[in-house]
C-alpha cells in the first residue's frame, strides 16, 4: 500500500512535515515497513482540505492531531 502526503504550500503550512514523520513512526512501530510506503506528492488538487493524504486512490483530509485516527481507520484496516 502506498500513502501519498501532499507537501504543497498550503499542506506544508498545515503540517505535512509532522504528518509524514508521525506516519513513519506508526508504520515502524507496527512493523509495517514492508507493506506500507510513504511518499510525498506535490499538490493533490484538494488544497481546501489540507492536509491532503492519498491512500489507495482515495483522498483524505488529515491534520497532525488526527493522524492516529487516520492510521487506525484507514491504514490498519486495509493492510492488517
Amino acid at each position, binding site marked *: 500500500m502506498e500513502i501519498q502526503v501532499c507537501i504543497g504550500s498550503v499542506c506544508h503550512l498545515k503540517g505535512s512535515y509532522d504528518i509524514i514523520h508521525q506516519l513513519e513512526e506508526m508504520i515502524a512501530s507496527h512493523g509495517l515497513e514492508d507493506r506500507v510506503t510513504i511518499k510525498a506528492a*506535490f499538490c493533490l488538487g484538494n488544497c481546501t482540505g*489540507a492536509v491532503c493524504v492519498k491512500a489507495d486512490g482515495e483522498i483524505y483530509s488529515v491534520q497532525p492531531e488526527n493522524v492516529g485516527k487516520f492510521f487506525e481507520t484507514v491504514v490498519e484496516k486495509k493492510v492488517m
Partner: protein
Amino acid sequence: MYFIDTAYNSIHKHGEELCGDHIEQVNLEDSKILVLADGMGSGVKANILATLTSKIAATMLREGASLDETIDTIVHTLPVCNERHLAYSTFTIIKAYRDGVVYVAEFDNPSVFLLRNGQSVPINKTTRTINDKVILESRFMLDENSLLVAVSDGVIHAGVGHSLSLGWQWKNVNEYLKDFSYKDTTTTTVTANVLEVCQKLYENQAGDDTTVLAVKIREQETINLFSGPPKNPENDYAVIEEILKSEGKVVVCGGTTASVVARILGTEMQVDLETMTPEIPPAGKIDRVELVTEGVLTINKAIELIRHYQTPGFNARAMAALNERNAAAMLAKLLIENCDKLNMWIGQAVNPAHQKNGFPMDFNFKINQLRELGRLVEKMGKEVNFIYI
C-alpha cells in the same frame, strides 16, 4: 561569446564597521569592468578613499574615458588625509571582454593571479607613469580553464600577528589558487574558499581589510524558472512545450505547476524526502527538469538566502547555508552560481486555495515575490527577463 563570471567579497578589519576596500562592477554589452580599490588606513577614511576611487574609475571607464583621464581625475578628487598629508588609494582595474580578452591596470595592489589548467601563468606587464603614479598594464586571454584573481594586501598578509609571521604571502596564495582554475569551479567558490582561509589565518581577527575578486569565463548558462500555471489552462500544453524547447535548464517552482508539467510530459514526479525540513517542503525531480520545488515558501526562503549572500562582508554562515540540502538552498545556489541569464515564466493562474483558508499569501504576493527574486538576480550582474503567461 562567453559569459563573464565574477564574484567578490571582503572581510572587514577586526573591530571596524566599514570596509576600507571597495569593489565596483560595471556591466557593459561586450564586457565587464571591475575596480578593486584599497583606501589608505582603515575605517571611515579608507572607506571613503576606496569608494571614491572605484566609483570614479568605474564610471569614467564606462563612459569611455581613457585611463590617463581617469587617474588624473582620481588624483585631483581624493581628499587629503590630515595626518598623513596624502591622498591615496591603491587600485586594480580589470576589463574583461566576452571573447576572453582581458585588460588589467594595477597600481600598488598585490599583483593579480592568473592560472590556467592548474598552472600559474606569468603575465607580461608594461609600465606607464601617469601623474607620478606608476601603473602596470597587461593584456591577456582567458579560456574556460583560466582563473583571474585580484586581492587587496589583506589577503597576502593574512596571518601576520597570528599564525604566520610573514603572512600567507603571494606565492602561497598563487599555489593555493591553482586547483580552482578548472572549468567546473565557479568564482563564488573561489572567493569563499580564499576568504575562509584568510579568516582562519587571522583567527577571526583580521588585521587589515581583506578582499578577493575572481573572474572566469564560461559558456552562458540560462535558467528558465517556471512558476505558476498559465492564466488560461488551455495554454498549458503550448507554454510548457515552449519552455522545454528554450535554451538552458528548466526549474519549476510550485506544486500545481509541477503537477501540470508532469502530466503534460506524461511522467511522474519523484519527491526527495531527504531534502524536507520543517521550514521548507522537499525538492522533486521530473525528467528534463533540473529542479522542482514548492512555490511561495521555498522562493521566500531562497530570497532570504540570496539577500544574506549579497550582504556586504564575507559571511561563512551565509555560504554554508547555500550548501545545505534543502530545496530553497538548491534554488538559491543554482541562481547564484550556475545562472547567467534568467528567464522567469510567471504564470498568472490564481490558486483558489490561497485565497481562502487563512493562507497568508495572496496572488499579488506571489507575483511580487517573483519580481523581487528577479531583481536580486539582476543585482548580481545577470540578465533577467520576465515573461507573463
